[in-house]
């Protein structure tokens, strides 16, 4: 049986009349990295703020680590760690003091606090910056410090709101590695991001949110496959003849001819490409080059938001 760390049912959140989150439900499996993917203003931060008890719950049912958000918010606060989207550090404290302050806020006993601070400073490789003021750290270091802070309470779930926003590619990679490492230790990660590559890199389970609604939810590979849109790019010595042959194949959804190559849309490309090659070869046609492009999460997103927008339009016409 699958154990869930977070379950959200029918969550709604409104700022006045604006529906920031409009009836969403999802589940996060214990021990996974769960990505909440969507463009800016989709409702990601509102969701994370409700989940982390920063905003009051308006409608819906949320349970985190077995605690009910309405009745046991303090229990939830103790069992989660948070890295906020914007920096939330006191520039006049040192790295160590920042962690010390956090540990005291959560009333972690002194001995445990000291041990964990030492351990975390090592993990995020800030040993040399231990007594450095936060204001003198680079953007990447500040983020690492915030992640370390989020882990200080040994949370069951770590919430990361846009963890690599505004960081250079190198720092992003490093932060990704830390996130993976933390996850391997058994911490469930709830991540929001508007970077497709980030969601793809880090997590299996992805929830795509747009305009306060979940438009797709599932494992990254499943989402991509659900598009059924692998594309095979093919160059042969007789493009005209090839075109006619493969047009007859029932697996092929669509073919387009460009001056240099054929673009073939096909379901389950990995399986169908060998058959395609066989068909063409038996007709004595020479293949100059062939490659398969799997859809990315970008394609998934465009696909789903595209459909979403069209549905929206239809509704308006009906009214």
């Amino acid at each position, binding site marked *: 049986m699958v154990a869930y760390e977070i379950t959200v049912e029918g969550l709604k959140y409104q700022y006045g009349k604006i529906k920031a989150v409009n009836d969403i439900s999802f589940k996060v499996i214990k021990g996974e990295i769960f990505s909440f993917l969507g463009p800016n203003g989709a409702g990601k931060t509102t969701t994370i703020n409700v989940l982390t008890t*920063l905003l009051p719950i308006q409608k819906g049912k949320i349970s985190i680590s077995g605690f009910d958000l309405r009745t046991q918010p303090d229990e939830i*606060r*103790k069992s989660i760690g948070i890295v906020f989207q914007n920096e939330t550090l006191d520039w*006049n404290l040192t790295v160590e003091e920042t962690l010390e302050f956090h540990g005291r806020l959560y009333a972690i006993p002194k001995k445990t606090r000291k041990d964990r601070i030492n351990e975390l400073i090592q993990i995020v490789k800030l040993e040399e910056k231990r007594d450095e003021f936060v204001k003198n750290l680079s953007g990447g270091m500040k983020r690492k410090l915030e992640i370390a802070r989020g882990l200080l309470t040994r949370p069951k779930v770590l919430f990361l709101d846009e963890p690599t926003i505004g960081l250079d590619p190198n720092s992003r990679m490093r932060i990704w590695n830390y996130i993976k490492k933390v996850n391997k230790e058994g911490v469930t990660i709830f991540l929001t991001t508007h970077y497709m590559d980030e969601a793809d890199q880090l997590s299996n389970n992805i929830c795509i949110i747009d305009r306060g609604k979940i438009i797709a939810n599932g494992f990254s590979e499943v989402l991509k496959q659900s598009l059924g849109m692998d594309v095979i790019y093919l160059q042969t010595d007789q493009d005209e003849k090839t075109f006619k042959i493969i047009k007859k194949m029932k697996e092929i959804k669509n073919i387009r001819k460009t001056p240099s190559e054929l673009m073939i849309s096909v379901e389950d490309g990995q399986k169908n490409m060998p058959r395609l090659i066989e068909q063409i070869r038996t007709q004595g046609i020479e293949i100059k080059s062939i490659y398969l492009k799997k859809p990315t999460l970008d394609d998934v997103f465009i696909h789903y938001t595209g459909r979403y927008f069209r549905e929206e339009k239809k509704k308006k016409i009906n009214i």
Partner: protein
Amino acid sequence: MRTEFLTIFWRDMLKFFRIKAMLFTSLIQPALWLALYGISMSSNFDSIIPKIPINQGVIQVNYLTFMAAGVISLTILFTCLYSGITLQFDKEFGLMKEMLASPLPRSHILIGLSLSGIAKSLIQTFIILVFGYVLGVRFFNTFSLMETIFSVLGILLFILLFAIGLLFLSSTIALRLKTHEGLQGVITLLSLPLFFASNALYPITSLPLAIKIISYGNPVSYFIQGLRYFTLGSNFYSFGNYYQYSSFDVLFALLFLLGFAISTYLFALRTIKKVKIV
């Protein structure tokens, strides 16, 4: 008992001693008030005010000693009113999110800050006492040792109530206003009537009616009343005025400050419980 408020206190004190410019100015400012305003005014007043014949056994207090209590109140007033700005900055720069998302009860933020307000006020008062003595301020002049000890305890109690009342007041304002620029304006504006419509620098008796009314509802007046009682005694002459404080007066002042502290605490608590960070 939960002691997380000590964390808030710890951080605020750490910053108080760390940010050298803040530390330096907050310690030098009261001394400058005494040295510049106090000395210049008292050299004028003490020559202008005729030496009215005074009753036997009643002491004559010089102006510098008289206004030293005013300088203490001024210093605490400014320190505590401006301390609320910390909350505004925390809110604006996101730090408050960390606190609000933690299991820390929100009241602890207020209690922690008020502790550091008290600590700062005591440090500053001590400096004024020492520096004032050098300049010629004579407190506890006719007191016995026991009376002095009793007075010091009384002063501590008054400072405690006055400081936390002001701190809760400024916390409430800080949490309700959106920008720290606006907050600075409001605090400065507020500090003027609080300080000048009081008995800090002159007796209330001869003030115009409107200002008199304000000063009777002003916690600063009652703080100073208590402070003068505990530093100068229950009856003395100063500034051409005969001062007599009964035990009832002092008790009333104490209750007024207690009421001030409790009501501002309730306001602040209500405000901080409603704070939403988005």
